[in-house]
């Protein structure tokens, strides 16, 4: 990844006068992201998922948690994808499951990014000091602790189940790698002249880190967030698949868990397994596609001219 100071690519061209430069600066971030075909596909797909999640009660014919249908019905007009062994409507579960995945992706991503930002930025800015030593030590510990067993232990021993718990566990277990990246990035930025200039302007450390340096890292923070959200969605599905999800809500992970527990594949109920797995893969793919567009922001060399 490059240094990531946005819009440094325009200086090579002969400068016209100020007005023209202003109107000609066609490099607004949303246009750049949109200019990548992959990102465009990803954004449209993600919008689709969001619409489904928001309008789930309108789209799904039944409540996702209802299990009073006849079990093992084949796909039909009333049950588009058939029913489960417990008599749940697979299509409705699928639609409501999108809500959980997106919520966990959003909040898990935010939690991991926020922790990574605060710890990474402060330790990078104070590189070489005692503060950095302590924060780096914590980061390193968090990096070497095996994440999945830790998550399982945390969830298994907690009293309550549910989305907030999953978000919390994902947040505190998956920030370390991102914190490392932020620390490295800020070390390259903090010796820039404009940071020294901010010190001369009488700014304190907090303001320098979060007002002066962070805007130059926005694209990296955005890329980190998309990555963290992808990871959170995967982690939620994984935990639920292991039976650690909330039994009172429906998510794609719990669908897979139940399908597996009931031996769906052995019984030839392949739709029950395939469909939640497929949408999960699609959601993660579209987030990865979006990251291609976000990469254009942080790395001007990738922009096609």
């Amino acid at each position, binding site marked *: 990844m490059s240094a990531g*100071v*946005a*819009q*440094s690519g*325009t*200086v090579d*061209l*002969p*400068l*016209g*006068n*100020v007005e*023209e*430069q*202003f109107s*000609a*600066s*066609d*490099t607004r971030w949303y*246009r750049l992201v949109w*200019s990548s075909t992959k990102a465009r596909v990803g954004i449209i797909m993600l919008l689709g998922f969001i619409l489904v999640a928001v309008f789930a009660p309108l789209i799904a014919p039944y409540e996702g948690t209802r299990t009073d249908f006849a079990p093992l019905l084949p796909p039909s007009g009333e049950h588009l994808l058939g029913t489960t062994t417990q008599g749940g409507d697979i299509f409705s579960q699928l639609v409501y499951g999108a809500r959980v995945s997106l919520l966990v992706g959003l909040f898990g991503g935010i939690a991991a990014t926020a922790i990574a930002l605060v710890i990474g930025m402060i330790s990078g800015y104070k590189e070489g000091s005692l503060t950095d030593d302590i924060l780096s030590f914590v980061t390193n510990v968090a990096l070497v602790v095996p994440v999945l067993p830790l998550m399982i232990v945390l969830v298994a021993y907690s009293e309550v189940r549910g989305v907030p718990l999953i978000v919390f566990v994902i947040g505190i277990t998956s920030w370390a790698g991102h914190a490392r990246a932020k620390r490295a990035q800020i070390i390259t930025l903090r010796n*820039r*002249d*404009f940071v*020294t*200039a*901010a*010190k*001369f*302007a*009488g*700014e304190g450390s907090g303001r320098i880190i979060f*007002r*002066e340096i962070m*805007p*130059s890292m*926005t694209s990296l923070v955005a890329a980190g967030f998309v990555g963290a959200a992808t990871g959170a969605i995967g982690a939620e599905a994984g935990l639920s698949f292991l039976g650690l999800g909330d039994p009172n809500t429906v998510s794609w992970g719990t669908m897979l868990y139940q399908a597996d527990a009931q031996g769906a594949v052995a019984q030839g109920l392949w739709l029950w397994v395939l469909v939640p797995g497929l949408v999960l893969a699609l959601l993660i793919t579209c987030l990865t596609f979006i990251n291609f567009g976000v990469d254009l922001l942080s790395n001007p060399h990738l922009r*096609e*001219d």
Partner: protein
Amino acid sequence: MTLLQVRDLSVRYEPKRQASLTAVDRVSLDIHDGEFVGLIGESGSGKSTLAMALLRLLERPGRISGGSITFDGHDITTASQDDLRVRRWRDIATVFQSSMNSLNPVMRVEAQFRDAIEEHSDLRGDAVRDRVRELFEMVMIDPKFMSAYPHELSGGMKQRVNLALALANRPRFVLLDEPTTGLDVVVQRSILDAVRRLQKELGFAVLFISHDIGTVMELSDRILVMYAGRLAEEQPASGLVADPLHPYSKGLLGSYGNPRAETVRVTYIPGRPPDLSRPLQGCRFAPRCPEAIERCTTVEPEFAPLGEGSVACHVARLQREPGPERVTGLPEPTRVFAGPEFVKTSEESDLARQAPVFLKVDGVSKVYERRRGLRVQRTQAVSGVGFELRRGEVTALVGQSGSGKTTLARMITGVDRPTSGSIRFTASDGQDIAVHGLRGRRLRDYRRHVQMVFQDPYSSLNPALPLRYALSRPLRNHRGLGAKEADSMAAELLETVALTPSSRFLDRYPHELSGGQRQRVVIARALAADPELIVADEPISSLDVSIRAEILELLQQLVRDHDLGVLYITHDLLSARLLADEIIVLNGGRVVEHGPALEVIRNPADDYTRTLLEAIPQPFERVG
């Protein structure tokens, strides 16, 4: 014999998301065997694009949109890359601008020579090694560095290696694109001397591109002046000095003054080059031209022979070859650029040296320690330096890189602390501050009195924040102003540095401004705290020669109006002489000479000062 013939060459940039523009527009030139041709112009004039086109190294979105390039009788305008590969480095070689990046960092230097030599000759094995040794001796580098990696060489050595590499296959034509930009004056001088000597000995032709007219004038036989993508003038070097035809050439020449004179005068060219992505009418230089007549704004002048050279200027042509028709308002022929001027007289300096002392540096040393495992590596950056700065006086700290001048600046501004010695500052309210022990809040308070102007205006302004933010922060922190007051004060500051009307600039981002405008903003930000001392670290070295005097004048005006003291740090004695009342010469961390500016320049007592002085290009003296 004509070696390189260029006819009506045009290069267009057609990026997807920005307006397309013609960076090189119908340029024709000839270079003969063994000739040394200089090409000068401001940044953005299209000289580097022309160079890339000649080498056929243009990359998208740029392309040759018209005209032809003929090398040694072969048309290479549309030749395929495979055909060109045979010629490159055998017939046509080049030295690029960034010496730091054009050597492969993971290959030993000798291997890089070996690649180039074996590709184009029958030399193998030890014969190649002998050839490389010979080349190293040619550029005066100890052959023991043949087995070094590029990072083990200094900047100057790398550029010499690049030069040697360019000459490896005895090319007939070498293109030098700003080969010494970013290097120290003394190193620059030695490389240019080597270029000229080798060119005389080996007889290759050179196209030497630079924005620094002084060095080009000294070296070249013939000079091309480029402006806004077109050739403005072509003349033998002596002719250009004695009788410049185009006002733009006069403007570029005017940016050099004689440092030894009692009163130094340097002109600068106001305004900026035109935006090439818009339709242009008339002469492209007319809006900045002090000699423009009515015809200049409507009819584009043809580039055609006049006297010994060629020129694209109505005024020069009418003055020398009056046609049948009468043209009113034609100015008198002149050799100087009738534009704005920067003047420094010696009386002003005498007066400034009477002012009271407000910063005392006494016996200051700085040792940097680097820990490598158990060993500690010590570097003595500054040793036992002492001097005084006076209110309202400009003191120049002159020296090469590594002389300790930047370390001193960092200690005076409180960024670093001296290992021993003291720095004391007396504020205007009588407060005595021991700078060498400051930290935390007291350091922040000290910066109300002392501010800094940075070298590179491209990196010292935050690209993500508008000017309004950059200017209002020091106002709020140091002067305790509220948001509204800070806003109106920020506008006032922009007016002070002549960015008017300020309302047009306040919400701009740095990337929308030119280098000169950015440096004005940096100066405005330094002024925001209403400081008593400004430390300016090479504030003009990254700017075009043609606008340097503009920034110097701004600094001088601020000294006069605000009773500021300025510590001006530079490697360039000429600009030190222009701005400073007093000069301190540093070498190897020690003061080797200290005195009134004019005195130091006229009667240098130290050998090192003399070396620095000799490195200043003197285009006027060579010819006469």
